């Protein structure tokens, strides 16, 4: 689905990314994990077509990415909701920008909002919602156009720990319900283990993929309470070691 081939990116003298090669299969969930500044956001922006690579290329569905595509959606760390739009109208923004028929998508918007537990909040304005609720709206918006690829840049890292856990569980459920290929950026080992098929561990200066770890724990997963607790612990330790400063 996504092929990242020999991508390099420099900002002036700074080598932000070097020799990134990674393939993501259809409906696979790949997590990029690494310290701040190792180029995770830069890589995701290149995949999204928001930034051009200095070298190399990204292909999605066989076509080289040159600008943002409609079947790829991006979810940011901030909810990025337009403050004058209601919840529903924020979710419908992509439909409007693409010039698609709104009637055809309103039902889907309501379904998505119900899935994330925001039924009855359709008419509210963003400032009336909590941070967690806003990020749920943002999640619905990124799913409205039925994207084949979902790129998520630390979507939960601005939230408190409890909301964060809740939303990662929700994302797991949503991925099964609205099958999509997901590339997810996080600092959190727990999130990586809970959600991913594979975890790419990145190292900085220049940004490189240091190791790719297969998760291979059966779904649905949870952190610690189930039969796979031992696997979760082993993987978490492995990721800890990989991320520890050399």
């Amino acid at each position, binding site marked *: 689905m996504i092929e990242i081939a020999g991508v390099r990116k420099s900002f002036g003298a700074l080598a932000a990314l070097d020799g990134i090669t990674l393939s993501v299969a259809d409906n696979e969930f790949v997590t990029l994990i690494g310290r701040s500044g190792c180029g995770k956001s830069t890589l995701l922006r290149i995949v999204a077509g928001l930034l051009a690579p200095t070298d190399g290329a990204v292909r999605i569905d066989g076509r080289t990415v040159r600008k943002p595509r409609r079947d790829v959606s991006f979810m*940011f760390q901030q909810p990025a909701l337009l403050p004058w739009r209601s919840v529903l109208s924020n979710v419908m923004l992509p439909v*409007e920008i693409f010039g698609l028929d709104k009637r055809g998508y309103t039902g889907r918007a309501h379904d998505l909002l119900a899935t994330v537990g925001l039924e009855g909040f359709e008419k509210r304005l963003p*400032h009336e919602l909590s941070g967690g609720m806003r990020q749920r709206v943002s999640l619905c918006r990124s799913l409205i156009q039925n994207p084949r690829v979902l790129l998520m840049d630390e979507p939960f890292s601005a939230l408190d720990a409890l909301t964060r856990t809740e939303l990662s569980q929700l994302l797991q459920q949503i991925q099964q319900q609205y099958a999509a290929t997901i590339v997810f950026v996080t600092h959190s080992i727990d999130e990586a283990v809970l959600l991913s098929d594979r975890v790419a561990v990145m190292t900085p200066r220049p940004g490189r993929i240091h190791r790719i770890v297969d998760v291979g724990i059966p779904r649905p997963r949870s952190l610690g309470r189930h039969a796979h607790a031992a696997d979760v612990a082993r993987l978490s330790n492995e990721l800890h070691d990989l991320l520890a400063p050399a």
Partner: protein
Amino acid sequence: MKVVLPVIGLALVIGLWWLATIVFGIERFLVPSPKDVVDAYLAQQGFLIEQAGVTLLETVQGFLLAVVAGVPIALLIVSSKILERMIYPLLLAVNAVPKIAIAPILVVWLGFGMLPKVVMVLLVCFFPIVISTASGMRSTPAELVELLRSLDCTRWQEFFKLRLRYAMPQVFVGMKVAISLAVIGAVIAEFVGANAGLGYVIVVSGGTADTALAFAAMALLAVLSIVLFYGLVMLERFLLPWAEGTRN
């Protein structure tokens, strides 16, 4: 309390004023008493309201023209660095000229009718509206711009669905500054050459030492300013209910 205290303050000042005119026996043509002013107003109510209507019309027309011209200019400034460098210094230079210095020339060019007043109001209002609108559009948060770009929006959409909408509270800031200046602009233009309007009334009553009438015209000007300003405040509350909550 919100209404009561200002009302008490106003009543107090009027009381002191009245007292002063009696105690010091000030001549009517220097400082009329509040009663003189009210009498002067009542004696010529129809005429005064008609003149207030002229000033109001000049003010509103000039102000609306400034909005209609200023917002697109702000859009141009924000959309292109080249245009910004071309237009901005020019705007600063024009704004640096004291408007009162332009008033006599406007009379020469445009005569004694309403047009030179409308143009004067336009000149005074234009700058604050352009500056506020442009700075509002520039302050659009980066994540919102990036969101729209990730949807592969057109430049048109970026401006009309995002930047201009985001700038609306700032546009209102500019409009509120402008409307306060607008009435001043209209009166200045009327001082220089007019045959109607409250500014004209003040000039004429100055000539005949009818100070009470001048005071009545001034009071009407104050009322005009305040009504226009709060009209904008109400309009903002109505049009931008989201702005209140977003600010804090």
